């Protein structure tokens, strides 16, 4: 497949465990995201997505294990917090004065293209413009890893498209690595090439999306024939069953088989929290 044999990880966690309010929000999480990848972080509410992101950017200290970022990490938190009384220009000034590396010219140019007025107060911008300003502030730090918590939530379709165009342009332009969470998988299908699935504080899936899709099959056939088949998860009504299975096997004419799409793959794993598709101890090396 398209994945190279070995890629340099920009984000790497080993045995990461984080406790929040006495309960484990994240347990025994070992994953890596290679350079230049756009990684989708998905999972139900409370799965530990935000916790993983906060740990990645250093806002939460691990209680167990390690988390490391090669280079600098920038973060856009959920709801894209900005100082609402600051004008956009003042927010850029804030960034310039609180950072050692700062691409103010690039940030101004980007906002100019997007039509965000520098003199307007952040609190009076539209949701899409606020998202663009928050992302511009993060990108102006010229990070190696950009972490975005639900960047598309509460945005209209046009704003979602614009945000993604900005991000993808940056990935193509200078090999930025992105980790972004969402619970709308349709938003991620064309933009992400790496998948991380968290469920109940545990890591379920981590890997290249093309490899994962090529490594699974969606079977559909008679329920009684499903007995004894090793499946990631199975759904069905009465005599008919649909199974998500790993690998590539021929099962005879009673089964219709096809490749799952990203949504089906993710749902298949989320349905059975004990199943996992993780790379071996060698990390991203395959």
């Amino acid at each position, binding site marked *: 497949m398209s994945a190279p044999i070995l890629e340099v990880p920009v984000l790497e966690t080993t045995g990461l465990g984080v406790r*929040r309010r006495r309960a484990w929000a994240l347990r025994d999480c070992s994953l890596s995201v290679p350079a230049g990848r756009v990684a989708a972080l998905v999972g139900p509410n409370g799965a530990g997505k935000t*916790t993983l992101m*906060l740990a990645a*950017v*250093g*806002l*939460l200290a691990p209680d167990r294990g390690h988390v490391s970022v090669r280079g600098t*990490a*920038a*973060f856009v*938190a*959920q*709801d894209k*917090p*900005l*100082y*609402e009384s*600051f004008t956009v220009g*003042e927010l850029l*000034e*804030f*960034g310039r*004065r*609180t*950072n*050692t*590396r700062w691409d103010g010219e690039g940030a101004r140019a980007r906002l100019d293209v997007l039509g965000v007025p520098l003199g307007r107060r952040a609190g009076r911008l539209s949701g899409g413009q606020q998202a663009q300003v*928050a992302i511009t*502030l993060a990108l102006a*730090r010229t990070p190696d890893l950009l972490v975005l918590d639900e960047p598309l939530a509460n945005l209209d379709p046009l704003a979602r498209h614009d945000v993604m165009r900005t991000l993808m342009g940056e990935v193509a332009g200078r090999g930025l690595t992105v980790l972004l969470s969402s619970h709308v998988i349709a938003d991620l299908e064309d933009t992400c090439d790496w998948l991380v699935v968290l469920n109940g504080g545990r890591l379920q899936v981590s890997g290249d999306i093309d490899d994962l899709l090529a490594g699974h099959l969606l079977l559909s056939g008679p329920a009684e024939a499903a007995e004894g088949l090793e499946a990631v998860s199975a759904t069905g009504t009465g005599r008919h069953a649909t199974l998500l299975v790993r690998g590539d096997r021929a099962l005879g004419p009673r089964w219709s088989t096809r490749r799952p799409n990203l949504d089906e793959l993710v749902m298949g794993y989320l349905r059975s929290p004990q199943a996992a598709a993780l790379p071996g101890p060698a990390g991203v090396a395959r």
Partner: protein
Amino acid sequence: MIWVTWRQHRAQLLTTAGFLVLLGLLLLGSATEARSYVSGYFPDGCPAGFAHCGSVEVAVGLGERYDAVYTLFGWMPLVLPALIGAFWGAPLLGREYERGTHRLAWTQSVPVRRWLAVKLGVLGGAVVAGGLLLSLMVSLWRPVFREGIDSGFGNIGVFNMTGVAPAAWWLYAFAAGGFAGTLFRRTLPAMALVVAGVAATMFTLFALSDHYAPPDRAVLSGTVVLDDPDARLVGATWVDPSGRAVDDPAACERGLDTGRSSAKAEAWQDCLFAEGYAYAVTYHPPERFWRFQWTEAGILVAASALLCALTARRVLRRRG
């Protein structure tokens, strides 16, 4: 970071500065008017060394003028620290957490430790400067009315408006507000807590301040009034001829005064003095002004340092 601090908190800084300017103008106007009132009576200057130059009429006139302003600033020792705590301290971290902007502020290159140090340092410094300015203005204004009468030691309200006390109180309230913000991670409850906390601290310290030094004791005979209006009274008791303290001497019959008259109480006191009783007063003489000022400031500054340390600990432990 200093620009960031200024930009984020300029509303508080400007409002407080504006308030101090207004107060300054009020005190200046009041003092100027009082001076011209006195010089209307004594055009060649004061012969007696008192603000009222020994004239009863002038004393009454000055007293009315003083009271008019005092009704305004009488509540300031309590209200100003509470306002500083609520509007400078509580939002410092409470608002960052509430709006989620702490995740913006603390993921830039500036380390959280430095972010907090600059904020506490710059704003704490501004608060101390504001408190000192208030104290200076009150100290310049008050003698116009009270020179030769008292220095502001005996009245605990005035005591907390002069010297270093206002600065120490403001700093303490600011630090307490900052800490309250980390407890609730929201501004409004932090404001409520800091107002309650400052009030509780104030009444505790007011009660405690009598014990900043062992009080002096004076045994009075023939009068129950200490000959120093500026002394701070701690306690008083009757002493019988054998030298024992008695709370309620029974040697003389005590009649009940009616209305505003105190004739029967005075008669009772005279009777007791005639029987050989004495009146023992414990008090702090006004020379202890600075000792008490520094003791109170020391307690408050130490408490502020502790609160700042606790704030830093909570912030650094739970950044997310």
